[in-house]
């Protein structure tokens, strides 16, 4: 349960920091750290407009998307502190649960019969299909490295006992960071702030959502962000330290991640759409390299 608490705490400031950092880099003062959440609260006060061509799929889409992310949050451990659910192969269910949410949000986008939203839905389905292998190969490599097969056991036993194994931490962190960016639709794959619908991915999918639906979708995105950054943090924090120190490091690391994303989004341009498939596949390729690193370290060759 500790991990859930930490995730919730990080959720509070994580999205705000990204916005703030981007504002500072572009020479503005920027809103307060809590502004993204205040926006969500403001949405909750508003009513909803439903497209006349939408059906019950649109009504259930956003609630299911939100629910799957909430359940997925119950899977993510904080090092040796187990999450609520922990069993052999739990990360398979974790990934497939997110798949359920994605499926429904794509259908909601197709439900309103808009060409723009169809475009977003199509890209979301395509990119998430391409990034999925990276996550599984990464977890497979870590399972081989530690000899365990659940989130909790893997992260509880992730010791870097020799210097070579630091490579694993670096690669795993890099892969997870990229997965985070793709899964949460950030730069360089998708630009949440773009003002041209033709080049959006995630934002254009939820164009027709409003009020409560939009609020829970935004909340779910924020939670999803922190879920993946918590997974990356698990790869980095040394376990020999005191628990309170590690919690401190975790919270600081989240700030660092958020700043990093803000920095990245300020200085990097979005990929060309046609480049995205290559970019995402290269992440999976790096994951395959990670498998070979583990095989070499474990002397299996």
């Amino acid at each position, binding site marked *: 349960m500790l991990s859930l608490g930490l995730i919730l705490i990080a959720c509070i400031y994580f999205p705000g920091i990204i916005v703030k950092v981007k504002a500072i880099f572009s020479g503005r003062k920027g809103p307060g750290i809590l502004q993204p959440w205040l926006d969500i609260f403001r949405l909750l006060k508003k009513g909803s407009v439903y497209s006349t061509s939408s059906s019950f799929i649109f009504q259930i889409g956003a609630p299911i998307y939100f*629910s799957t992310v909430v359940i997925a949050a119950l899977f993510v451990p904080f090092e040796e502190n187990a999450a609520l659910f922990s069993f052999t192969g739990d990360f398979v269910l974790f990934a497939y649960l997110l798949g359920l949410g994605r499926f429904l949000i794509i*259908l909601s986008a197709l439900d309103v*019969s808009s060409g723009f939203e169809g475009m977003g*839905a199509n890209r979301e389905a395509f990119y998430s299909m391409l990034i999925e292998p990276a996550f599984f190969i990464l977890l497979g490599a870590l399972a081989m490295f530690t000899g365990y097969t659940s989130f909790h056991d893997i992260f509880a036993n992730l010791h870097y006992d020799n210097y070579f194994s630091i490579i694993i931490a670096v690669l795993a962190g890099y892969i997870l960071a990229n997965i985070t960016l793709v899964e949460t639709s950030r730069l360089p794959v998708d630009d949440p702030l773009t003002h041209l619908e033709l080049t959006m991915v995630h934002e254009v999918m939820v164009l027709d959502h409003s009020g409560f639906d939009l609020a829970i979708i935004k909340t779910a995105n924020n939670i999803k962000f922190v879920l993946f950054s918590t997974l990356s943090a698990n790869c980095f924090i040394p376990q020999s330290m005191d628990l309170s120190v590690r919690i401190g490091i975790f919270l600081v690391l989240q700030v660092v991640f958020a700043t990093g994303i803000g920095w990245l989004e300020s200085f990097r341009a979005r990929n060309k759409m046609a480049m995205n498939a290559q970019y995402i596949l290269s992440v999976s390729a790096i994951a395959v390299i990670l498998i070979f690193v583990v095989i070499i370290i474990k002397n299996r060759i």
Partner: protein
Amino acid sequence: MFIILFKSALLISFGIFIVPKQWKYTLALLLNILLVISTGNWAVDVLMNGTRTIALDISTWSGPVQLEIDQLSAYFILIIDMICFCGILYAGGYLRPYLPKKRSVFISLHLFSYVWLHGAMLLVTSLRDGIAFLLAWELMSLFSFVLVIFEAQKESTLKTGINYLLQMHLGFALIMIGFLIAANQTSELSFAGVAKYFERLDNAPLFLLFFAGFGIKAGFIPLHSWLPRAHPAAPSHVSGVMSGVMIKMGIYGIFRMVSLIQNDLMIIGIVVLAIGVISGLMGVIMAIMQHDLKKLLAYHSIENIGIIGMGIGVGILGRAVGDDALMILGLAGALLHNVNHALFKSLLFFTAGNVYYATHSVNMDNLGGLVKGMRYSSGAFLIGALAISGIPPFNGFISEFLIYSGVLHHLPQASFWMSLVAVTTTLGLVLIGGLCIYCFTKAFGMTFLGTRRQTQHPIVSEVPPIMLLPAGLLISAILAIGFGASFFGNLMLTILGQLTSVSSAKFSADLLQSLSMVSNINILLVIVIVVVYAVKAWHQRGVEVKSGPTWGCGYTAGDYRHQYTPTSYADSLRQLVNPLIDYKRHYKSFGEKEIFPPPKSFETENKDLIEEKTVLSWVHLMVRYLPKAGIAQSGMINHYLIYPLLFLAILGLLTILNVI
């Protein structure tokens, strides 16, 4: 008692030809229920108390034939009974518009073949004698052929049917040769003979022969080319049964052979796994390219057969390296995926049939927006689509999870090569899963969501309740597996325990705990969804809820033509996998001097490249060169008299040279 029921059901089936037209369906339904009662009773008994044999009072020259039902047979019998029963229920509604149009004898022939297909599949799973098995296998192919050509007045349907019949006989020949090779060495034409052969001699050649023979029925790539033709041509209840259970008879045969093989495990495992991965990936990629809903589903059968093949391959490799967990979990995943695929695929075919019933089209380019008129059908299709994509809380996830856990179990101790196998399997499963989501968001979105992609908007209405009843039965089975995962996991371990005599005690506790956790999380997921939805409903009572046109990003004249189409949805993937498919565009571009351009058309075509390269290229070669043999057919009797003389001369020459 039950054997009399079984036999009388098959005998009374001839009565379908005699009774008046309006009673034919009722009689067929009754006979199906008789078959379900008799065999279902045996199957449940076997699953609880162990193998039993039932005398049939028929004998071939190798002795009396008896039904021998072990747990594997019992499991397949239950799947067959379930799907065939749902199929005949569905036919009650689906055939109704055909009754006045079709002649009485065609209706009788169709229903008669349906009953006999059901009976033949039951016999295939329970006969061990070689002759009897092959006979039942042949009956199954013949009656399914009759079922496929129900709409034989269309030339394309008849052509497809003949294609199907030929391919099935190729498979039949391969299986027969397999049995004969074994009988030649052991003088026993039966599964027992094959078992003895496998104990004594090299396994790989004979197993791969059987694998090819059964693989044609199952639809492994590159033996799949009948599948995407026959399923769309057949009426929907037949496609549901064929895709749901009949292709599983191939898997049944492979499972039997897997339980018998003794050596060459490594090579067999690698081949089966490789074919499984290729079938899975190519099946789903080709599925995405289709715009015919039933053809899309047919390609998905290939994909799912690929997943089953991956499970079997992983299982054999597990046995080869002596890891019981990998072996049992891989096979268990494959076995459970059989029933899962039977359930959701027949559900999907039935609902695709509903679409055809309501709109007279399964071309997704003309569909869209059906959800408004057909709430229940679209709900059923959605559940099938989620289940086939392996998404929790439905059943498809459970079988894929079993294969994943087998691989994960093995990973910590894997050697270099086995870790490559593990990576390949995981990559295959993950990519198939992702592509499935891509494909079924397309299939569901283009068929049921948005607005109709046609100028006229004929109002669609829901199909009669009898066509929704089987969907309800299938959905409840799908949910039962999703929410009672540990029960079904345990069942698989029991069946495989009997089949392979390997104890699963070491890892079964861990596995069952995981599965019950999965089920519990599924329940929790449903609760959370209900709660969130309730909160939403409560929240919306307090705020203003309006409806308006879709936000067109500033453009206000958007209409149905601006929606995504099946082709455009598939296009981003098509660009990535272009070398794997034969993609063509047919259109005429605008000319320079066309000031007032006439109406233009644009058409895309995706041909199956694997079929082109592996099957059709040979056929084209034969079509080109075989007519040259016609030179011998001169039409003169004196030439024809020379041929036997020549034959005898060559025979004599060969004898002198000691060749024969």
